[in-house]
Each structure stands twice: as structure tokens, then as C-alpha cells.
């Protein structure tokens, strides 16, 4: 075996040594694994939004549970899961290249997972549902053919609903004239509002709408109620 006498290792050789090569190979497999996993199984894994939500869920946030009136929502964002009980249905649900008629039955149960797009609704109707979702379940049947792929989803017409659940939701600001009850923590403090303009800052949690009542369940950074006297809960 011939030994090399030129033992001096240059900066380049030291930088691109065996350890660095192993590190680069490992990094390559990590990137491929991450791309593969997020593309085929879980799109929201380690995405910016998850990081944002976890960042907002700081120890200083307040746990709330509300029973309030329903404002008109114009959401243009990502929502982890949407569950809707549609009634008196008309129009079509379009998912990818397929269209599902909603006029065959009077009631439909629709679930959208990892939704991203426009979701506008008021206390009675879904006004706009137009975006992309990973998984769509209509009346118990999973109509999404490919796992992990986000495809276009749309309601062609405004549809009434009886109940609505939005899970894994982050709202940086929600402000409207509130009427109802805001319960803090483990039901130790209750705040009643009567048509006072209320601002919820950095809400992170779920919204349930049922029987003309909105239940915000999650954490907020602060709540500001502007009435005869302003109240700030932090």
C-alpha cells in the first residue's frame, strides 16, 4: 500500500471531508423524506402555519369558551377541518374534476380537511366556499381519490346550514358587536355582553355554530370590549 506523503490537508479538503459528505448524504435523505411525507401524507407538517399557531399559543394566552351571536365571516386562510351540515341543499359541490349534486337529498354532511381558500358564511348560509382541500367527505363517503393531494373544492351556490364546525383555526382579529356570554378558564369568570363591540386578538382554536349560537373554544391573546366602559382582558 502506497502512502501519501503530501499530508497537508487544504481548506477545501477539510471542508469537503468524509464527515461533510456523510452529512450531505443524510441531508439529502432528510429532504427527500420530508418532501415525500408532506406531499403524500400530511401537507401541514412543519409548515409555516403550524409554527405560527404554536407560537401564538403562548402561556400568556387566555382560555375562552363563548356562547355568542354569529357575525358574518369572510375567511381567506387555512382551516384544519371544516364540518358542515347542509340543509335544503341546491347546486353542486365541485372537487377536482368531479361534480357532486347536492339536490338529490335535503340534507348533506360535508367534511373538508386542510382547507385553504375563501370561506364566507353568516348565521344562516354558506356564502362562498372556494379553495383547495386535501380530503373531502360527503355524506360519509371519502370522495378524495388521491391521498395528500390538495385539489380544488367549490360550492356552486349559496347553501343553508344547520350546524358548522371549524377546527384548527387561527384568527388574528375577530371584531363584531357581541351578545352573549364569554367564559374564561374553567368557568370561574363569566362576562356578559349585550351588543358591545368586542375584539378578540389572536384567537386559536375551534368555532362551533349550532342553534344560532357561536361557540368559540380556544385561546386568545386579549379581549377588548368597547361599550359604555371599555374592558380589556389580557
Amino acid at each position: 500500500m502506497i502512502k501519501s506523503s503530501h499530508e497537508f490537508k487544504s481548506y477545501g479538503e477539510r471542508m469537503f471531508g468524509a464527515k461533510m459528505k456523510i452529512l450531505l448524504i443524510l441531508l439529502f435523505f432528510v429532504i427527500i423524506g420530508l418532501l415525500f411525507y408532506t406531499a403524500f401524507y400530511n401537507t401541514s407538517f412543519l409548515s409555516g402555519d403550524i409554527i405560527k399557531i404554536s407560537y401564538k399559543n403562548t402561556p400568556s394566552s387566555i382560555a375562552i369558551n363563548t356562547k355568542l351571536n354569529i357575525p358574518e365571516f369572510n375567511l381567506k386562510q387555512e382551516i384544519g377541518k371544516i364540518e358542515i351540515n347542509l340543509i335544503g341543499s341546491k347546486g353542486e359541490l365541485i372537487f377536482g374534476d368531479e361534480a357532486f349534486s347536492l339536490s338529490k337529498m335535503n340534507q348533506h354532511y360535508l367534511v373538508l380537511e386542510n382547507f385553504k381558500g375563501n370561506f364566507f358564511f353568516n348565521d344562516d348560509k354558506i356564502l362562498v366556499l372556494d379553495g383547495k382541500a386535501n380530503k373531502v367527505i360527503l355524506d360519509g363517503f371519502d370522495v378524495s381519490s388521491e391521498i395528500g393531494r390538495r385539489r380544488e373544492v367549490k360550492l356552486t351556490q349559496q347553501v343553508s346550514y344547520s350546524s358548522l364546525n371549524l377546527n384548527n383555526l387561527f384568527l388574528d382579529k375577530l371584531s363584531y358587536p357581541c351578545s352573549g356570554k364569554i367564559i374564561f378558564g374553567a368557568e370561574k369568570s363569566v362576562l356578559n355582553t349585550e351588543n358591545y363591540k368586542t375584539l378578540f386578538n389572536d384567537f386559536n382554536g375551534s368555532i362551533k355554530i349550532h342553534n344560532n349560537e357561536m361557540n368559540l373554544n380556544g385561546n386568545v391573546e386579549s379581549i377588548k370590549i368597547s361599550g359604555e366602559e371599555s374592558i380589556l382582558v389580557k
Partner: protein
Amino acid sequence: MPTKKIIGNKKKKEKKKLNHLKIKSTRKVYIPFYFMIIIILGFIFFIKITGRELNKTALILMIVFIVLILKLTEIHRFSNSYEIGDSSLICSKGILTKNIKRIDYFAISDINVHQGLLQRLLGFGDVIVSLFSFDEATKIKNINNPEELALKIEKAAIALRGIKNDKIIS
């Protein structure tokens, strides 16, 4: 004749160029790493055309990976250079700090060529220059056409020895 002179000068220049042949390691040695970049870019292209979600973290890691590979391979390549001179083989290492080794052709005892499987497939290899005075050898790593280089060093060494021998005889 002026035309003959020009041709003569060109020949001299070519001869001089051959005598001072500068060699760098081939980029072929980094082909496995370039291939990794192609695989990642291909995978991203597939994700985009199939409408799947492209993970932001993976995208950042990918950019870091590509920059690292391109930077490190180029630094690595530029840190080693070899020169076949009139009387010696010059091996220089380093970019900021330099380590230059001159191997006199008189001191060369053997020249070996080594090619692994990948090196043989891609047409590059190592030239190992052994010296009389040492048990060890100097490795000229990852050179295109290593046999040709070995032959050039051998020719240069033989030519120099021939001149010296002639001088001794006279």
C-alpha cells in the same frame, strides 16, 4: 520568411504550454452529489405538476443543500492544482494558505495509475508518483485521463534525464 517565423513562434508557444501544463481535479468526482440535486429538483417538479403541497421547511433545506454542494465542491476543486513544469512536478494545495510541493523529475522512481469502478466508468482517476528518497508517494487525485498524465510526467522525466546525461557525458 515572416510566415515561417510566425509558425515557428506558435510551435514554441505550444511547446512551452505543454511544458507548463496546469491541471485541476475533474468535476466528474462530484457527479453523485450533482445527481442528488437533480433527484431533489425532479421530485419538486413532480410535486408541482401533480398539484401537491410543497413543504416550506423542505424547500429551505433544499436551497441550503444545493448552495452547500455547489460551494463546497468548487472550494474543494480549487484547493488542489498541479503543474507539470520543465524540471519538476508542482503540487499546490490550499486557497488562502498555500502548501506547494515541488517534485523533481530526477527524484521520481515510479508512476502508478489507480482507477476505481466509478472512476473507470467516468474516465478519471488518480496518478501516484513515487519517489526514490521516500517510501511514501504523492497522489494527484481525480484527474481526467490519468494514463495520459502519467505518460506526460514520464516523458518529461525521461527528457530531462536525457539532457542531464548528455551533459555528464560531454
